[in-house]
């Protein structure tokens, strides 16, 4: 029975949608502020009243990637004219790019960003690879005390990072894994493994058993059926799980703060550490944050149909 919407109901509907749009704008405001600060001239980043409209510039990004020193005296006009556009932006700010033997010196940011990429990608591959196999095992075979094992696996995900970090730090120190990529990769793999098992189990349970049974009748071994029939069916699930694991590892802060300080430090502990005492250049920090948040924002849209499943460990599906 279709209800004919009364005028009152229609107005309420419109009001609700208007409210949704207002709330959405409020929710996005902090993210807009990060993004816009990255493109603001430095003096407009912390101006009173706050600057909303401005001419965007890329100076902050140039600063983000380079090591700079204060100019003692104004730069010669010829040098200024001969410099590439990005170096002119630095001169404009009263600084010059630090060069050693003519080579532009990079700031710490690119290496921290690379560390984040290395650690997040490697731990994701390991966690999703092992998680997919384990999920298949739990989904298709009789496992003694199955629910207890699954609870055990999930409970490792719930451990507070600081609690795990205390003994891990001592162990890593003993075997020389502090401040190393491998050390973080192991921690993130363990952290994501339980998540990936639970999520993948949900996806595996959805693949009809009949597919494999048909393959077995056709003379495939169980292993061939898994590789050639089940895995291709599970590709969407594997991709969604991988993106989730990547985001979790990418965002992780506590382990990285405790276990790394220079060589293997990732972006999350690095970015806040730049805020020192005195004058903080928020535009440069915002530029670094902007590049750091960008992949996550893109992935969120790519994942939009799997978000519910992801945040509930595969328990609730749409």
């Amino acid at each position: 029975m279709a209800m004919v919407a009364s005028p009152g109901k229609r107005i309420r509907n419109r009001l609700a949608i208007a409210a949704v749009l207002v709330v959405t704008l409020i929710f996005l405001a902090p993210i807009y502020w990060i993004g816009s600060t990255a493109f603001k001239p430095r003096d407009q980043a912390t101006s009173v009243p706050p600057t909303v409209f401005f001419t965007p510039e890329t100076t902050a990004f140039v600063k983000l990637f380079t090591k700079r020193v204060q100019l003692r005296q104004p730069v010669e006009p010829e040098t200024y004219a001969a410099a590439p556009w990005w170096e002119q932006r630095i001169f404009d700010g009263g600084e010059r790019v630090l060069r050693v033997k003519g080579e532009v010196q990079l700031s710490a940011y690119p290496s921290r960003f690379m560390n984040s990429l290395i650690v997040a990608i490697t731990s994701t591959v390991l966690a999703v690879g092992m998680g997919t196999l384990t999920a298949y095992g739990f989904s298709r075979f009789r496992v003694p005390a199955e629910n207890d094992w699954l609870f055990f696996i999930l409970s490792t995900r719930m451990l507070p990072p600081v609690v795990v970090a205390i003994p891990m730090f001592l162990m890593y120190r003993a075997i020389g894994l502090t401040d190393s990529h491998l050390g973080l990769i192991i921690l993130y793999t363990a952290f994501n493994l339980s998540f990936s098992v639970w999520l993948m189990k949900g996806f595996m349970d959805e693949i009809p058993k009949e597919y494999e049974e048909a393959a077995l009748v056709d003379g495939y071994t169980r292993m061939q059926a898994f590789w050639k029939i089940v895995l291709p069916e599970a590709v969407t699930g594997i991709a969604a799980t991988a993106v989730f694991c990547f985001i979790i590892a990418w965002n992780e802060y506590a382990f990285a703060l405790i276990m790394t300080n220079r060589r293997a430090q990732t972006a999350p502990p690095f970015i806040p550490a730049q805020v020192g005492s005195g004058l903080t250049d928020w535009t440069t920090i915002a530029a670094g944050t902007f590049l750091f948040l960008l992949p996550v924002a893109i992935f969120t849209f790519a994942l939009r149909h799997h978000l519910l499943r992801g945040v509930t460990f595969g328990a609730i599906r749409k």
Partner: protein
Amino acid sequence: MLARLDTRSRAAAQGWSDLAIRNAFIIPTIAFLIIFNVFPLIYSLGYSFTDFRASVSEPARFVGLRNYRELLSDPNVWRNFTVTAKYVIVSVTGQVVVGFGLAMLLNRTFPMKGFVTTLLLLPMMMSMAVVGLFWKLLYDPSWGPINYALGLGSFDWLSNPNHALYAVAITDIWMWAPFVMLLSLAGLSAVPQHLYEAAAIDRASGWYSFTRITLPLVAPILLIAIIFRTMEAFKTFDLAYIMSGQPTTETISIRLYKMAFQEWQTGRSSALAYIVLIVVVAITNIYVKYLNKVKER
């Protein structure tokens, strides 16, 4: 025909038994988790009965239950637990109110609904540490856009010990209300429309159909959101640590971090870690129980 038979028998001969596949697929994961999660915890259980300090080379001395006894009678530790409890209550309540409210508003069809919903979910996908840092800028008393937009003058959000906890909780609500919204939305969309139609025919008030139809049907999934957020808020570290150095925002995880990695009281912090762990395992147990209940429906 012969060739096909041949491959079949060879495949069968090479094929693993189901039992072998099961073990090969499951055991590495379990072993990995035992080595890198259970084993370290056993290790730190041992340390929790000693006065070990990782910063000095003196060997650990066994002190029995002294760490536990002293921690549980330390008013500062109880203050940390009180701060954590307050934080959990404020931020989870806020998340449920805002998140469920948003879900009620979103539970209708309109153009670009999927896009708007995804935009709303962006905060929860982002790094708490990095985004929390920028909330410090937003909250700045002299030039922060929040005070300007709300006309609060130079209202002190983070450096006033009485406000700091609420300021951090507001950021947490901003990040995680979308989580509650996402789960509530799933619950709301599963409520059969004909129940509302029947209620309308009976001229039931909007409040009546909300409390008698909507709430009971959404309750189980809402409860999952609440338990999960409670657990996460209880463990909270990143946001409060980045945003504020106030003693009024020193949650138990922050205390644990400072005790272990700034004061280097390794033995005592291992004991505190175990106290925290017991609470977390208890909440996890409740969570999984409800998760399985909802799954079965």
